[in-house]
Each structure stands twice: as C-alpha cells, then as structure tokens.
C-alpha cells in the first residue's frame, strides 16, 4: 500500500480541484465570465500531454542508443496516453472557444497548430500499426517520434506566441507570466497541474503493466 501514496495524493488533489475550482471567487473579465474556471481543467490536460510526450521522446532516444525493446514499449504507451490527453485538451478548448471566441473550430493559430501537432502523434500511432516486424517498427517509430516532438514544441509553444492569437500567451494577449493569473486561482491551478499529471502517470503505468504482461518475451 505504501507505494500507492501518490495515487491517493492525485485523487485527493483532484477532488480538491473539482470542488474548489467551482467554489472560489474568480475575477470576471470580458467575455470569459465564469468560464475562466476552465483554466483548472483545460490547461492541466496539456501539462499531462507534454509530460507524456516528453517521457515518450526520452524513451525513444534511449531505444535508439541501446536497441532495448522495453524502451519502445514505454515510448509507445506514453505517446498513446499523451495523445489521449491532447484530444481531451483540444475538445475542452474547442468547447471553450465556442462561447468565447465565437466558433468551435476557428482559424486561430493556436488551435490550428495544436490540431496539426496532435495529428502528427496520431500518425505515429498509425505508423506503428502498419509495420509488423517488431524491430523495424521500434526503430522507424522511434525516429518518427523524435521528429514529432521536435515539431510539437514550435507548433504549440513558439508559433502561437509569435503571431496574434486569441489564446492567452500570444503576441497580443496576456500569458501565463506570474502577474497575469489571479492569486486565488493559482491556489487551485498548481494543485490541478500536480493532480492531473499524477493521474496521467497512473494511467500510463497501468498501460505499461498491461503491455508487460502481454509481451512477456520482451520483458524477461
């Protein structure tokens, strides 16, 4: 039981986030209204996605240095969980955009670039299915994964910040600098980051453990 403490921590933090996220007083600004509370649920999805894709690319690099198939399993599992959270983040963002930006799928650079980034990772998952030879699959997908990560950062972080976007953090809108977020909201936002990330790690470990049972010949 002692090694499950972080799962309990994730559950407690997230219950706090759900309750406090709806109950605390937040500043009502512009067209956002109460929807600013989405910050506690929409942004952590992306933190989870970045965490998973980082785990994935590190394992892909390690695979290419030692050709250990375990690393390939870690990388692909993390990419799957990361893509899952990416889709959740995109869906919540689209819903939010419908009522604040005036369109579900807008021509906003942040939204377009993120969609491209998620599609690249979808392509990674499809690519894996299409190759039957295990070693070939591991090598090609590891190289693809590194390219995918190299595109993820400029697509979701750099380009939307260089051009005008409605999304916070672009050239003309306030970002996530320490002054931009209300102090009270930070008390929920940071626990939300930790809680959701721990939850995504939990789901990731479940997937890895399932894969370990399924692919016994690799994990000996």
């Amino acid at each position, binding site marked *: 039981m002692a090694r499950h403490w972080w799962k309990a921590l994730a*559950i407690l933090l*997230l*219950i706090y986030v*759900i309750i406090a996220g*709806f*109950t605390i007083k937040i500043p009502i600004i512009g067209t956002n209204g109460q929807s600013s509370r989405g910050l506690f649920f929409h942004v952590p999805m992306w933190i989870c996605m970045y965490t998973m894709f980082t785990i994935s690319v590190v394992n892909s690099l390690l695979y290419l240095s030692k050709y250990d198939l375990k690393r390939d399993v870690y990388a692909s599992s993390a990419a799957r969980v990361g893509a899952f959270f990416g889709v959740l983040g995109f869906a919540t963002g689209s819903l939010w955009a419908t009522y604040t930006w005036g369109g579900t799928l807008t021509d906003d650079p942040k939204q377009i670039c993120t969609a491209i980034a998620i599609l690249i990772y979808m392509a990674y998952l499809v690519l894996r299915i299409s190759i039957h030879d295990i070693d070939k699959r591991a090598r090609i997908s590891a190289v693809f994964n590194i390219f995918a990560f190299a595109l993820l950062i400029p697509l979701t972080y750099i380009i939307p910040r260089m051009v005008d976007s409605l999304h916070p953090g672009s050239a003309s809108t306030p970002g996530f600098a320490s002054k931009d977020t209300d102090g009270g909201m930070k008390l929920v936002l940071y626990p939300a980051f930790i809680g959701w990330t721990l939850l995504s790690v*939990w789901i990731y470990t479940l997937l890895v*453990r399932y894969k*370990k*049972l399924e692919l016994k010949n690799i994990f000996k």
Partner: protein
Amino acid sequence: MINRAFSFCLTLTLLLVSVLANAQQQDTEKGALNEFFRSNDKIYVIVGVLVIIFLGIVLFLINLDRKISKLEQRDKK
C-alpha cells in the same frame, strides 16, 4: 465467486439507496445541506455531479490497477 459477491452487495446497496431516497422525500425542501445545494443557482449540484463522475473513474482505475496486480502476482509464480 468474487464477482457474484460484489454484484450481490451492489444490488443490496442500490436497494437501500432507493429506500433512503423514499424516506427523505418529504424534507428535501428543508435542511442545511439542501439549502447549500440550492444556493448560487444550484451550481453545487453540478460540483457534486463532477465529484461523482470523478470518483467513478477513480474506482474504475483502482479496480483495473488491482486486477493487473493480481495478474502480475500470478505471473511471478
């Protein structure tokens, strides 16, 4: 065997819930808890909904975690 015991317990709990719900039907209008859930345009009802959904997902994950642990234990032998 475990599944049968589990479904029996679940049925019993659900039966009890319906009994409890009937018993409380008269005073849903009063009480501090009901007033709390009705305040602020009933937003706390939805907070409750989210907590229930989240706990459901967590129970599912815990269950899955234990099932995988069991398989791992069996695998070691």
